[in-house]
């Protein structure tokens, strides 16, 4: 025997070593136990007695399993032997000891073999520390930390027992349910969350109690009123026997999320509805020009089903050369950021399914989604608008023609006068010849001269008629050409020369130097000049003082336009008439139709110019006409013509 606990002090040095050893063993706070190789307790120190509540006498001589190891009695011989074998190894392990009066203790052991006199292992020495409280404390601290953590989480975490009473509910419940105290422990969960919520979640609770995880995602009546949207997961909590002893509930408030989700959904639905019902065609293409989306309006415009165009190149909706060039347009834009249409809008011609052209107003905007570039195009069918424009232009031409014919009235006196001159000359010459023939005295050279004169005068009459015919010509017979305003002004002055003379009006011309060219329909612009000059003559009909018609023309390089002013020394335009001056049917002439100025303005505006009326510094009326022009010889045109 290495030592006996009851052996106390024998006096010898060996004995004093022994006594010391004994004292160490006896009074050590460590648990010291010695077992033989069968597991019988040989030595059991005081610390062991105090821990286990068993005296050494009750334990010594018996297998340790019988007294100290929980469940040890049930172990078989084989198991015991295995246990001993493991214990013989020097190592550390943790086990539990029974106590006579209390709960099991957790002990941390350090074992070693002891050798007998024969040098072979004979006993096992075990030294142990009771770590029950430590663990408990650790466990407590861990539990505390966990609780703190759980309390700070914004989610709701609760532990319920099988009767739905609260074992634990984290702090969030207090805020959520507007509770007075944090500690809800022991209350029925219904009292905390409200009857409505309980009713809704009961199913989940019951699932959990049945051992299955389940989640509820939906609205829950909020204890403070209103509703919140939650995602609540319920899991069974199990005891040490793996039986369900309660429910863990983890709930997250997803009200905001739900609201955003619904907003997004609404937004999306709204966008889809807008696109679907838009009157304009909406086409989305990717950066390769492949059609991604094609709304019903686009279907109507192009005559294609969305299904038949999606996935194909957008060029199929264009005529040549745009169809082939479209890829280049896109590439150019992606490379340089310059768009022919992007940011501007443009009138283009599209190609319908049946191949017929359709006039469109096209606007394009780029956008990115997931780092990919797309283009959205808005097309509006402007065929009707274009047709209306065309019709309006034709209408204006008709009206202008009628106006010219009406204007002819003012030329009648002059015309008659002009024509009677050459006719008189022709007649007198012819009659002179006849007289000479009667007398038998017409020499051939006299006859020749006479006939030449007749021919000349007839030609002169012809020219006059030609001028009138030219004036009366319908607009569509004269396509727009490049004309110099001064030439046109002079033509008109010639046409009205008789009227000017009769009215005794002095014409003062101050025309361009150098000459400029306008893109104009000559007949129509001359008509404008005709109306303005004729009006000026009429205005001065009653003027007693000086009657002066001043015509001035200037080229303005800044705006590339020709400014022409026609002013008279008549009574001027009355304040009251200014507003209505250019209205159709407005006239101050008793026999006037009132179309002249209205048509003048329409013609001028169609040419891209302006016509303004005013009173000059000397009191008479002054009309200013501005026409887009280029200076002759400048080499480049103004805009797109």
């Amino acid at each position, binding site marked *: 025997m290495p030592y006996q606990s009851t052996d106390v002090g024998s006096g010898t040095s060996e004995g004093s070593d022994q006594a010391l050893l004994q004292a160490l063993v006896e009074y050590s706070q460590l648990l010291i136990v010695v077992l033989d190789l069968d597991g019988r307790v040989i030595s059991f120190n005081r610390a062991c007695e105090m821990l286990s509540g068993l005296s050494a006498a009750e334990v010594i001589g018996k297998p340790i399993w019988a007294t100290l190891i929980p469940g040890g009695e049930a172990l078989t011989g084989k198991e015991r032997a295995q246990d001993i074998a493991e214990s013989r190894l020097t190592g550390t392990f943790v086990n539990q000891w029974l106590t006579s009066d209390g709960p099991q203790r957790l002990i941390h052991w350090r074992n070693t073999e002891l050798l007998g006199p024969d040098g072979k292992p004979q006993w096992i020495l075990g030294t142990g520390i009771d770590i029950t409280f430590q663990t408990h404390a650790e466990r407590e601290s861990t539990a505390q930390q966990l609780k703190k953590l759980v309390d700070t989480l914004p989610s709701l975490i609760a532990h319920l027992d099988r009767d739905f009473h609260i074992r634990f509910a984290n702090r969030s419940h207090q805020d959520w349910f507007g509770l007075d105290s944090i500690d809800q422990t022991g209350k029925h969960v219904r009292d905390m969350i409200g009857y409505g919520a309980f009713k809704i979640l009961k199913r989940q609770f019951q699932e959990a109690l049945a051992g299955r995880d389940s989640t509820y995602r939906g609205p829950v009546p909020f204890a403070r009123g209103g509703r919140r949207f939650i995602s609540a997961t319920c899991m069974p909590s199990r005891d040490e026997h793996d039986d369900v002893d309660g429910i863990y509930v983890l709930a997250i408030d997803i009200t905001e999320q739900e609201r955003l989700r619904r907003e997004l959904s609404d937004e999306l639905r709204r966008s889809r509805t807008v696109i679907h019902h838009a009157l304009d065609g909406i086409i989305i293409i990717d950066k390769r020009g492949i059609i991604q989306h094609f709304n019903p309006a686009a279907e109507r415009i192009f005559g294609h089903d969305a299904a038949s165009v999606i996935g194909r190149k957008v060029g199929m909706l264009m005529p040549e050369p745009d169809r082939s060039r479209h890829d280049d347009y896109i590439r150019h834009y992606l490379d340089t950021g310059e768009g022919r249409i992007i940011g501007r809008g443009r009138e283009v011609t599209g190609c319908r399914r049946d191949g017929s052209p359709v006039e469109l107003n096209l606007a394009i905007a780029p956008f990115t989604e997931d780092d990919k570039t797309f283009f959205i195009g808005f097309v509006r069918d402007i065929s009707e608008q274009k047709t209306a424009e065309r019709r309006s232009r034709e209408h204006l031409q008709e009206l202008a023609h009628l106006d010219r014919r009406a204007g002819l009235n003012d030329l009648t006196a002059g015309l008659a006068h002009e024509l009677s001159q050459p006719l008189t*000359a022709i007649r007198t010459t012819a009659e002179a010849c006849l007289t000479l023939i009667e007398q038998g005295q017409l020499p051939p050279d006299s006859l020749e001269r006479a006939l030449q004169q007749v021919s000349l005068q007839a030609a*002169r009459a012809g020219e006059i008629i030609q001028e009138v015919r030219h004036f009366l010509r319908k607009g569509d017979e004269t396509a727009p050409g490049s004309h110099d305003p001064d030439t046109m002004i002079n033509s008109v002055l010639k046409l009205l020369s008789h009227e000017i003379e009769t009215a005794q009006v002095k014409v003062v011309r101050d025309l361009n130097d150098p000459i400029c060219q306008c893109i104009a329909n000559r007949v129509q612009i001359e008509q404008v000049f005709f109306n303005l000059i004729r009006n000026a003559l009429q205005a001065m009909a009653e003027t007693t003082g000086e009657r002066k018609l001043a015509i001035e023309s200037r080229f303005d390089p800044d705006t590339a336009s020709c400014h022409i002013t026609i002013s008279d020394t008549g009574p001027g335009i009355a304040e009251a008439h200014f507003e209505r001056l250019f209205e159709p049917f407005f006239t101050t002439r008793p026999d006037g139709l009132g179309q002249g100025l209205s048509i003048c303005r329409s013609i001028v505006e169609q040419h891209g110019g302006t016509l303004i009326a005013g009173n000059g510094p000397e009191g008479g009326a002054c009309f200013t006409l501005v026409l887009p022009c280029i200076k002759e010889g400048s080499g480049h045109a103004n805009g797109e013509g």
Partner: protein
Amino acid sequence: MPTAKAEQGTVVIVDDDDAIRDGLTMLMDAAGLATCSFASGQDLLAWTPPDEPMCLLLDLCMPGMNGLEVQQALQARDWEIPIVFLTAHGEVSSAVQAVKNGALGFLEKPTFTRQELLELVRQAITHHHETLQRRTESLQIYERIARLTQRELEVARLVAQGLANKVIAIELDISERTVEVHRSRSMKKLELRQVQDLVRLEHMLGPS
């Protein structure tokens, strides 16, 4: 300048239109009338007309000075040349005014016939011829009147008024015989045969 044949009178053509002037000239030539033409009223007024029978063919509508203005200017200068106006369509009122102002007539371009033209022209020339003759006669008479002495003129005047010699004698405070002498001398100087002729000249004998 007047052309060769001046026997019947000269037609003066005033029209701004060259072709019409030429045509009219040719026609007048063919009819055996001398012509003279001007392109404007100003040119006409710058001319001194010869003392021969003439007719003026005047265009009514001309730039610068029109036909009516020319007519007024001529009257201001006491030119008594008869005027035939040439009018165009629509100038009828002006033409009527011209005639009221003393024009002989007007012809409408281009519808007038050469017969109408020549007739008016000849009428005008004849008229002018008579006018000229009368003027020559008047000048003659005035010349003769200037031969008379003061007394002779006084006596002639009173005789022309139809007074008897006796009364004239009392009026002038001279003898009847003296009256007879003055009367006979004045008749001789005036180259008149009968008293009726003297009576006819009464207005020319007025207070000098």
